[in-house]
């Protein structure tokens, strides 16, 4: 250690190596996005913007990321169905306000949740652990 990182030349070499790796990694991910098919149902696409417009993420999670006041909604579509979601969106709950959405907004949000549901499962019970600490979905 005493002979390493003692001058600017060594430090800049390490910095450039890290920066180059970071930029390659970033642009690889931008170019080769994890899911290739980028065509989306237009209703679901608008539904995503409604999800952001009403800040649903403040209380709800998708794949375990988001707020903690309400339940994770990744697979609510397959577990409860469209009517259940519509009823909640229309009436709210003792905690969640009724957002007075238009009929189209409700349809868009349901489509968005259907789209998310089709992308995979967020249930931790569907994963198994491996000896090296990594996990695999069954």
């Amino acid at each position: 250690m005493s002979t390493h990182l003692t001058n600017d030349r060594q430090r800049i070499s390490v910095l450039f190596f890290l920066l180059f790796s970071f930029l390659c990694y970033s642009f690889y991910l931008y170019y080769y996005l994890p899911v290739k098919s980028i065509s989306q149902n237009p209703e679901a696409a608008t539904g995503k913007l409604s999800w952001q417009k009403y800040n649903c993420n403040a209380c709800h999670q998708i794949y375990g990321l988001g707020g903690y006041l309400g339940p994770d909604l990744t697979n609510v579509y397959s577990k409860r169905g469209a009517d259940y979601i519509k009823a909640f969106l229309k009436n709210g709950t003792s905690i969640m306000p009724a957002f007075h959405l238009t009929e189209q907004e409700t349809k868009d949000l349901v489509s968005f949740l259907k789209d998310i549901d089709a992308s995979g499962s967020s249930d931790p019970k569907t994963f198994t652990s491996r000896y090296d600490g990594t996990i695999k979905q069954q």
Partner: protein
Amino acid sequence: MTEPLNSNKLNTSKLFIISGLLLLITGMLFGLTGALQYLVPGFLKDHLSFEIIRPLHVSSVIFWIILAAMGTVLIYLQQYTKRKLYSPLLLKVQYLLFAISICAILISYCAHLFGGREYWEFHPAFAIPIATGWILFIINFIKSLGGFRNQPVYVWMWLTGLAFFLFTFAESYLWIFPYFRNNIANDMTIQWKSYGSMVGSWNMLIYGSSIYLMEKISGVKKYSRSPIAFALYFTGLFNLMFNWGHHIYTLPTYAFVKHIGYAVSMTELFILGRIIWQWRSTLSTAQKHYHHNTYRLLLAADIWVFLTLILAIIMSVPAINLYTHGTHITVAHTMGATIGINSFLLLAFAFDILQETCFTSPGYSKWFNRGFITVNISLFVFWISLITAGILKAKWQMAETGIPFSYMMKQLSPYFMVFFISGFIMACEFVILIYPLLKNQLLCYFKYLGKKDKIKYAEPNEYFAELNLVKNSG
């Protein structure tokens, strides 16, 4: 006569810190309201429901961190270079851009106007003045620095923080292009890539400042140019760039992203090992400087770095993350890092900078002692209550019993009660710590205005006398 760097004048750099402190108080107020909504379902549901309160809390706290970090870096940069900033005008424009945007963002939340994503819930249009303000910050910093050769590690850290915040902030807005947002896995992969690195970027500004401050207190300037300082800096940078995959282990994204995240996160064991190795010398330094308010805050942050790092490393193991992900253990980690590390360090800088010219009243140290101990104890209780709630939620997530979400949340209410009470005590004590600092700053400023004709800059005071004693003994 040119104005010295430490003057009683309420300059723009100090305004960043003062505005940050006001945002911290605002953020705690919104945080307590949000915690109350966990305890009393439906509380303020019709006017300030949780989807409004949460972004008010999160944005206030994030902007406290960003404003205070910017102000600190700008002031320490002037102390380091022993020169004034390149352009006070750019600084004023930068301050105005941030101040106006933050006020507008908080007002827009109250008016139910969102449109962004988690942590940056405001309308994307507000990102433009924020990014512009940051670019002005970068220009002023680089021009004031003068050169890049043979700089200490904290200057490297500041430059890294400056560059990476801009990059990751821009990256976090890639979602505005349908190409990135049209699939949830793609969208969330890029979102958490940017967020993971963004937190690392403001940490670079804060940790860099803490190294500068530590050297200023001890008077020993060797560490910031040592190989170990640079080795730790590069470990931090490596994590900033590549460890973000640990946020998305359950997301259907590339497996290699998760493996890289896992492997890189484990290099934090090197930092943890270093903390344990240094423990004895940290304790002896602590005994030497413990009477120093600023140092005590740095020491508390050190302890919270240790606790938060252990939790972070544990949570970064995918097999364990499976249990902790989506539970309040993640919140405990965030709160430990934001309050215990970031806020304590930023408060240490605020005390160092604001007390230098406007010394607080002699009776203040008694208040400080009490506040400091109470804040730490209440933060620890707050942290444990979240971890306990998280463990119970993890058990519920993994159980096959089919207990409804609302019922599980009801079972957690005793822990939320402890969380609220400890949070309330902590917030009150934080205000007790901050209030005299803000009050004295304003009083000092008005005194300065009154004596503007015969200005006496930075009189030697108890603080400097104390600082000299520390330096001599070191």
